[in-house]
């Protein structure tokens, strides 16, 4: 139940071992690099110029290789997109390879380069084809309305005496246009083509060269411009036939090229491996470039959890003798990264905290304390045993089928555990897929006695708020702030308890309870009034602040009321389930086949209800932790531990035999 203890690690070793040691660090993956800033004036720790230049060159080479490989990957994706299912979208969905397979495939840089050149060639050929296809289609579209013309296109050019222009006249105004042309230039010939019922009629206008401008002007006034035919051999009809022939050949060639590209897809895993292994090398070089070094030695500094130190030292010293590893506690002004460290049974619930944000180093990890509350609240919000069973089974199946890591894995484990809470709550309240089987509740049904359920919700909320105040109290004691612990947290217990007893006593008509509550509240309130203004010297200001602090009571009361959502969410899911059951059972009255629609409605209805309510239950249980619970004591501002490790994009490297 804590935040793991972090040490600042310094590694000093000869420059000649730099590559190897950085590789070991990457393999072990337990150090988050954080180099101490070194002033350039301290000349003994300067980066050597020739080393830096060399590193720069190497980095450039690697990043060029990465660009090539990325090209291949994108090229492959064009031919066969890898579809990720809904869960993989959350969990990553990489390819799983055993360590040795990855190392083997990843080292085939030369082969990958050959694949790249092949991809490149195919890509170029394909784009040449598609350009040509576009050009041919363009020509085709221009020629198609002149197919009837049995003159070679080259003879339509005219000469210095005669001008031949091709136009398309709108059929509606055909007569008008022809008249206009004739009027302005009587020597022009207008030869219409077949109208074929379309909106335009192709027309050839033949006139003397000196009249050409006149004709064009008349027509352009009507926004009719001469058509320009592409330069092709023979008549338009012949040209069209040639184009069609060529197009079908291109089509064939493209199919062949695509086949070749698909043949390359078998290299995909190799390319992925090489990409990741090159990018790991790139990371190593990038780290090496920022290490301070002298002519003989270099230094790496970073954060590592205390538990991981022995393994780290062992791994480094197994391969290199001349390595000095030193670990120290963080300084006051340093901000080490945070790892939550809980027993395996609590670890899934770290997901709740991780989604919220990491606690500041040195403060409390709330995951352990939040676990029982999240568990039971989730159970109450979903509130159905049948749904709980399905939820657990689905989550466990997904965990087995899909490899996940980090927060996603914790989240699914947590959901699987919370399914048990639903079974628990469902059994207690007699809800198995709503009222489908008519199983009686062990305790009571919230539909029969919602006030009791409301009371249970409030009571659990009160417990959580007390625990929340207690967490802060514990933290203050641990920090040695005894005064804060007693005055700021301790006094709230009698005041809050007294106030609630007072309310409860008058509601239940129990004068003894009210009496106890009254005195408890007075003691608590008195203490708060006296102590809460202690920052002020002025006695009036001090008391004023003290009295105002009692106003925080409204905050606590509204916190408790907020837990009523548990009743509402629980009722919502069980009532929807009942409605589904009710609608489905009505179909049984249809003779013989009634069970078919009944089953369909049951399955669809319950799956829908489950899906919607799982999201709602998760979100609202989380909110109750974040606002009502964490708000009492949590100090955020920690940053997640991000070690220097094998950060891959496509391949998840796993132990032998797990792939």
């Amino acid at each position, binding site marked *: 139940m804590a935040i793991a203890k972090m040490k600042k690690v310094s590694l000093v070793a000869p420059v000649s071992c730099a590559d190897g040691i950085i590789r070991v660090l990457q393999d072990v993956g337990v150090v988050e690099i954080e180099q101490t800033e070194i002033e350039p004036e301290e000349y003994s720790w300067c980066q050597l110029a020739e080393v830096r230049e060399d590193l720069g060159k190497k980095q450039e080479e690697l990043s060029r290789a990465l660009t090539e490989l990325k090209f291949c990957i994108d090229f492959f994706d064009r031919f066969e997109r890898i579809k*990720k299912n*809904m*869960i993989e*979208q*959350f969990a990553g969905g990489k390819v799983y390879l055993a360590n040795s397979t990855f190392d083997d495939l990843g080292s085939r840089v030369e082969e990958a380069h050959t694949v790249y050149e092949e991809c490149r060639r195919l890509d170029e050929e394909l784009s040449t084809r598609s350009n040509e296809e576009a050009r041919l289609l363009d020509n085709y579209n221009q020629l198609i309305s002149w197919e009837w013309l049995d003159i070679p296109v080259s003879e339509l050019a005219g000469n210095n005496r005669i001008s031949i222009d091709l136009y398309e006249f709108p059929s509606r105004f055909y007569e008008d246009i022809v008249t206009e042309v004739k009027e302005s230039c009587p020597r022009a010939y207008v030869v219409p083509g077949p109208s074929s019922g379309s909106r335009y009629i192709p027309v050839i206008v033949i006139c003397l060269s000196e009249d050409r401008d006149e004709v064009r002007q008349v027509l352009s006034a009507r926004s009719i411009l001469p058509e320009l035919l592409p330069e092709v051999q023979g008549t338009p009809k012949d040209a069209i036939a040639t184009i069609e022939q060529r197009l079908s050949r291109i089509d064939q060639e493209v199919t062949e090229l695509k086949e070749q590209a698909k043949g390359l897809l078998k290299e995909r895993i190799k390319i992925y491996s090489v990409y990741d292994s090159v990018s790991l090398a790139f990371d190593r070089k990038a780290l090496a470039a920022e290490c301070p070094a002298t002519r003989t030695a270099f230094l790496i500094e970073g954060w590592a959890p205390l538990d991981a130190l022995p393994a780290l030292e062992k791994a480094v010293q197994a391969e290199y003798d001349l390595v000095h590893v030193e670990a120290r506690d963080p300084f006051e002004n340093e901000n080490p990264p945070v790892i939550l460290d809980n027993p395996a049974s609590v670890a899934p619930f770290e997901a709740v905290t991780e*989604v*919220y944000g990491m606690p500041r180093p040195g403060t409390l990890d709330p995951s352990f304390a939040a676990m029982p509350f999240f568990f039971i609240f989730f159970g109450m919000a979903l509130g159905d045993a049948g749904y709980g069973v399905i939820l657990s089974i689905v989550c466990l199946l997904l965990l087995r089928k899909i490899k996940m890591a980090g*927060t996603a894995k914790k989240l699914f484990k947590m959901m699987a555990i919370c399914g048990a809470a639903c079974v628990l709550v469902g059994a207690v309240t007699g809800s198995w897929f709503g009222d489908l089987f008519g199983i009686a509740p062990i305790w009571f049904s919230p*539909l029969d006695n*919602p006030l009791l359920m409301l009371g249970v919700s409030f009571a659990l909320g009160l417990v959580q708020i007390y625990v929340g105040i207690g967490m802060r109290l514990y933290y203050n004691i641990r920090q040695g702030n005894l005064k804060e612990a007693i005055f700021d947290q301790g006094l709230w217990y009698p005041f809050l308890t007294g106030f609630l007893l007072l309310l409860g006593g008058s509601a239940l008509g129990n004068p003894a309870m009210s009496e106890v509550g009254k005195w408890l509240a007075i003691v608590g309130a008195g203490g708060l009034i006296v102590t809460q203004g202690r920052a002020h010297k002025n006695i009036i200001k001090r008391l004023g602040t003290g009295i105002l602090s009692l106003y925080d009571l409204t905050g606590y009361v509204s916190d408790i009321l*907020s837990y*009523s*959502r548990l*009743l*509402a*969410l629980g*009722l*919502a899911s069980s*009532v*929807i389930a009942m*409605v589904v059951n*009710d609608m489905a059972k*009505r179909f049984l009255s249809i003779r013989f086949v009634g069970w078919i629609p009944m089953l369909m409605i049951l399955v669809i209805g319950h799956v829908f209800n489950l899906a*919607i309510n799982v*999201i*709602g239950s998760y*979100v*609202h249980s*989380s*909110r109750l932790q*974040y*606002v009502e619970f964490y708000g009492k004591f949590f100090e955020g501002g920690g940053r997640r531990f991000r070690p220097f490790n094998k950060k891959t994009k496509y391949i998840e490297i796993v132990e032998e035999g797990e792939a």
Partner: protein
Amino acid sequence: MSITVGMVLGFFAVAVAFILPGIGSSIGVALVGSAGSGVVTEDPDKFGQVLLLQVIPGTQGIYGALTGFLLMMKMGVFSGNIVRLTTSEGWLAIAAAMPIALVGLLSAVYQGKVAAAGLGVVAKRPEELGKPLVFAAMVETYAVLAFLATLLLVLFGIEFGGVA
């Protein structure tokens, strides 16, 4: 069978419970969906996360529908023997439906806005999806409370006797 004013009012209560939160949820869901398409254009693999944000403003519509179904049950619509509500009973049904009808309508729209804004997180820092979800859940709180009020009123406050 003659129709009473109470029955008309009762049907009106059902209609209001379906209509208003339904409208609110449609607007909310549409807001997130149309903005979410942009995120999915950039990275189709974010579909699941966007969908998660999109369904959140949809719950108000479900609360409303649920209220409507419960009222129908109480009025005996499903049993085919509709209770001939008195005028007061009709008004009672409307009053009971009001909390989720109005709060559902408005909160779904605002929740949609919050969720749509949360899409930025999905686009740039998908690992932080939990945070926009919680922001959206803050708005939902009031819909849940209103639904609680309606639910309690309908389930336990209303028993239709009808006109003798």
